[in-house]
Structures are given as structure tokens and as C-alpha cells.
């Protein structure tokens, strides 16, 4: 009898946890019909925010990929003094409260910031521009990609790179033909994570770039701005973000399963996820 009660309590607890996680998402769609969702996409506030969000996040991801990949490879393949410290510092923006990240960006790149006057001298003003949105997104989202990429590069068997060299390939060919394809799953997973984080960016963006419609107002900022004005619009925008998130989640898992099947070494390391 006691045993049956325990089983019931166990199943109930698991069920409540699952419902709790899914209910808010279900509620968004319960209150927006697909027709209504499409209808709201012609709302200029929604449309502008959507375009700005996708544009800034995509550009930020490209920057993260181009600058983050070499850093990740360096951290994964070289042993040097202070490496452990460097790996930890890279993760700092991940745990930083977003508002603090925003202040930091202002203090560094703002008009009166550390690099502000130098930027001014070459005619660049960052704060409250679309470029500022990209900078804020890249700042908070890049650690997710970099740490995942470090783990992916570390999981590739160094003997495969060594074999490539003895077979006549130089370092560049070895990287593009052997290391990159083997790490690809982990890199895609990292990209999906950092894309999701970037798309949801709120705190640092509003501090550093503001929330100007048509300029810096991304979907999360627009949701906040429209919240009291047009609740239906916020539901539609949330619906859009949920759909994108589902695609990103699928990408994350696809990447992780690739990494697992390609990795010839230890199972893929997937660290604790961040609070966004």
C-alpha cells in the first residue's frame, strides 16, 4: 500500500514538472491562432523588431564564428602558462548579470568610455546604434559558442591531426580537412546555443543600445515595450521566438549527436548551461 502511494507520488511529481515546463509555451499558442500570428506580422512594430533581431543576431553569429573559432582552437590545442585562467575568463560574460555586461560595454565603448574617444576620432559612435546591438549580442553570446568549440576541439583525437601531418598535409590542410570536420557537430551545437542566447538578449542590449523602434528594438525589447500597449502583438512575437527556439533546439541536438558519432575519444562534454 505504502509502496503504491510512493509510485503515485513519484509519477505525479514527474508529471507536474513536465506540465510546468510546457504550460507557458502551450499558453502562448492557446491565445494566438496561427491566423492571428500571421496577421500580427504585418504590424510594423512586430515586423521591424523581427527584422532587427534576425539581422543583428546573424551578423553577431558570423563575428563569433570568425573570431571565436581561432580562439577556441588555440585554447584547446596549445598548452601555455595561464591557459586555465584564459579559459575561465572567456566564460565570464556567461555568468555576468546582463545589466552589468551593458554597463561594461558602455564603460568600454561609450562616448566617455575607455575606447570612446578613439572610436570618436575615426568617426564611430557605438551606443544606441544597431551596431551596438550586434556588439551586445556578440559579447553575451560568444562564450557559449567558444566553450562548446573548445570542448569539441579537445575531443578530436590528436593522433588524427598527427597522422594528417605525416601524410603530407600542412597545418592549414590538417585543420580544414581533419580537425574542423571532426569538430563540426560540437561547433554547430555551440552555434545553436549562442544563437538562442543572442536572440533572447535583453539586459545588455537595452543598456548599451537602447530600445528604439526600427533601430535597436529587437524582439525581446519589443515584447517588453508592447506588453502594456498591445498584448496580442507580444503574444505573436513570443510565438515567433518559440518557433525559432524549437528549430535551434533541434540544431543543438543534431550537432551533439554528430559530435558523439564522429568523436573517436571520450563522450562529448556538455557543460552546465547558462542562465540567460
Amino acid at each position, binding site marked *: 500500500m505504502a509502496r503504491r502511494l510512493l509510485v503515485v507520488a513519484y509519477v505525479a511529481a514527474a508529471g507536474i514538472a513536465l506540465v510546468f515546463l510546457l504550460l507557458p509555451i502551450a499558453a502562448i499558442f492557446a491565445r494566438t491562432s496561427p491566423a492571428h500570428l500571421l496577421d500580427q506580422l504585418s504590424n510594423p512594430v512586430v515586423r521591424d523588431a523581427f527584422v532587427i533581431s534576425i539581422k543583428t543576431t546573424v551578423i553577431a553569429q558570423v563575428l563569433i564564428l570568425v573570431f571565436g573559432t581561432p580562439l577556441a582552437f588555440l585554447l584547446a590545442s596549445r598548452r601555455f602558462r595561464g591557459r586555465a585562467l584564459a579559459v575561465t575568463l572567456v566564460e565570464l560574460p556567461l555568468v555576468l548579470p546582463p545589466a552589468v555586461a551593458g554597463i561594461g560595454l558602455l564603460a568600454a565603448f561609450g562616448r566617455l568610455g575607455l575606447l570612446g574617444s578613439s572610436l570618436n576620432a575615426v568617426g564611430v559612435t557605438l551606443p544606441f546604434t544597431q551596431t551596438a546591438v550586434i556588439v551586445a549580442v556578440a559579447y553575451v553570446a560568444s562564450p557559449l559558442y567558444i566553450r562548446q568549440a573548445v570542448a569539441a576541439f579537445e575531443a578530436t*583525437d590528436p*593522433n*588524427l591531426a*598527427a*597522422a*594528417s*601531418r*605525416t*601524410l*603530407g*598535409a*600542412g597545418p592549414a590542410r590538417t585543420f580544414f*580537412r*581533419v580537425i574542423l*570536420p*571532426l569538430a563540426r557537430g560540437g561547433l554547430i551545437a555551440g552555434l545553436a546555443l549562442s544563437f538562442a542566447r543572442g536572440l533572447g538578449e535583453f539586459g545588455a542590449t537595452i543598456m548599451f543600445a537602447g530600445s528604439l523602434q526600427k533601430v535597436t528594438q529587437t524582439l525581446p525589447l519589443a515584447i517588453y515595450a508592447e506588453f502594456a500597449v498591445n498584448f496580442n502583438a507580444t503574444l505573436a512575437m513570443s510565438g515567433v521566438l518559440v518557433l525559432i527556439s524549437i528549430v535551434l533546439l533541434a540544431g543543438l541536438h543534431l550537432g551533439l549527436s554528430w559530435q558523439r558519432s*564522429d568523436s*573517436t575519444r571520450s563522450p562529448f562534454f556538455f557543460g552546465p548551461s547558462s542562465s540567460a
Partner: protein
Amino acid sequence: MATLRLDEIALLLRSFELRLTLDVDRTVALVGPSGAGKTTVLRIVAGLTRPHSGRVAVDDEIWVDRERALPPERRRVGLVFQEYALFPHMTVRQNVEYARRHAADDYLERFRIAQLADARPGELSGGERQRVALARALARDPQVLLLDEPLAALDAHTKTAVRAELHDLLAELEIPVLLVTHDFEDAAALAEQVSVIVDGRLRQTGTPSRLVAEPADAFVASFTGANLLNGYADGTTRVRLDDGTLVATADPARGRVSLAVYPWDITLATEPPHDSALNVIHAPIRSVAELGNRVRLAVGPVSAEITAESLARLGLRAGEPVYASFKATGTRVVAEHEPAAPSAGT
């Protein structure tokens, strides 16, 4: 045939210094316990690790010395890794083509893996993987072939067949081959010359049969499969073993010595032998292990090897006492075995 020359190469490893000079102008096996620095030697030749000092050259072409070090891709060297290091994301054909474009077919045919051309390494058996690794290494048309524990990744069943295959291949190749293994039997089967390496230093170099006939020290003796009996020699051909047994040897010696006795020089019998010139150990059989058609029995301090047929004829079983005898000429006196320092890493 070209000659690979390792001249006074030195490299500080974790617990000892690797230091050796070795000429390779045929198939040479570097044998030693794990952690002796064997793999490091191959990495130095391949250019994956740079020695602190010394020189590696193939004929007149210097690969590394004090001034310069050619990167691995500029040395024509074939290295077959212990786990083969096949690229898992490429097919067998792509793996071979990685070493040389447009010539894969010849090598796939030669190594009888043409039917596996489109398979991925993950789908292959151990023996097939090794053939792919060899095909890939040789497709580079190397001046020197390096094999790291070529048989260690195979199960016992495949090993015998692959060893015979590999032996034939190495005999055909007209380039110096340096292979490393921890198994003396594999080394003896594959190589014309065997060098024993312990803690980064060469202990002895010679043909396999010479190493067995005249082991330079107790380590080489035990490595080549001999039993070691420690005792004290008084200047005659008698050695008093530590357990009190008196053993006759062929050569006079003095002081603490080890006697090397090979398992196949020991005869087993259920009755005491009549020949009083024989050394006899009377002890119970500790264990019986079958190795193909031979059987290895542990008797007191020694192990003896007899045929499965003899085992059946004598009716020997574990736990029963037996007479193990060997001639004085079946013993070799070597310097006493020093316990090897615990070593780590390669």
C-alpha cells in the same frame, strides 16, 4: 636500401631521459616495456616531437639536428599508429587518397581492400583497419616506414594471421622499417634485428636468436621469455639459489647472479630423472595455460613449456607435484635482475 640514422638523440621524458643511437637499414624492432620511450622514438623520427639534441637523417638528408627540424609533412615518412588513426569521417578510399591523389586504386588492390573502398573506418574489423592504415602510409611513398605496436590492437585470433601477412609485406618493402612493440615474440617474428629499450636506453641489439642465446642482462633474458633464478655463485659452475637449491651451470661465475632458463629447455616428468647431471626442481604445478598447441605450466619458481600431447601423455594437472629438469647448458648466467623502477608514460 636507404639508411635511417638516429644519432645521439636525447629528450627528457617524465621520469627518465631518452637517449639513443640506432641505425635502421632493414626491419628493426624496438622492444621494451610500456613507458620505455618507444613511441617517442617514432614521433621524433616522424617529426611530431622534437628532440632536445641529436640528429635524425635518412642517407644524406637531415630531418632534424641542432639547427633545423623538417616539419612532418616535409619528411617522406609513413607512420602507422597503434590504433591506426584512420580518419573516421572519410571512406577507406578518401583515407588513402589523402596521402596521394589519383593513386588510391593501386593501393586498395594491393592490400585487398578494394571492396571496402566506400566503407568508413568504423565499419571495419581490426585486421582491415590495419591494411587501410598500411595502404595509406605507403601511398605516401615513404623513405622510411614506422609501425607503432602494429599487432597490439588486434585480438589473439586475428593476430597470428596478420603477423604472417605483415611479415611478407615487410620482406617485400625495400625501405628501412622501424617498428616498436612490447612483445618479444612479435618482434622476433617480424624483424631481422631487435633492440631492447628500457627507461630510454638501449640494453642490447642483435638478431632475435642471438638475444635468446646470449642475453646481455637479466632484463633482456626475462623479456625474451626466460625464467630468472636468483642466487649466489662461488666462482665455480655451481650456483646456490636463494631457496637453497644447488644448480649446475655451464659457465663459472662469482657473486650475486641470475640464471636464465628458457621454458622450452625444461623437461617435465612424474618420476625423478635418472640422469644426475640434470638440475631438478620438485614442486607442485601452480597453473596450466594453453597457448595454441603448446602448454605453459608454472612449476615452483619456473614456467615450462611442453606440447599439448606431452601434457596429455603425462596426465599433468594443477596442484600435483612434478619434476622439472634442465641441463647445465640450458642455463645462462646474467647479472642479477634489478627491480625496474616504476615508469609512467611513453
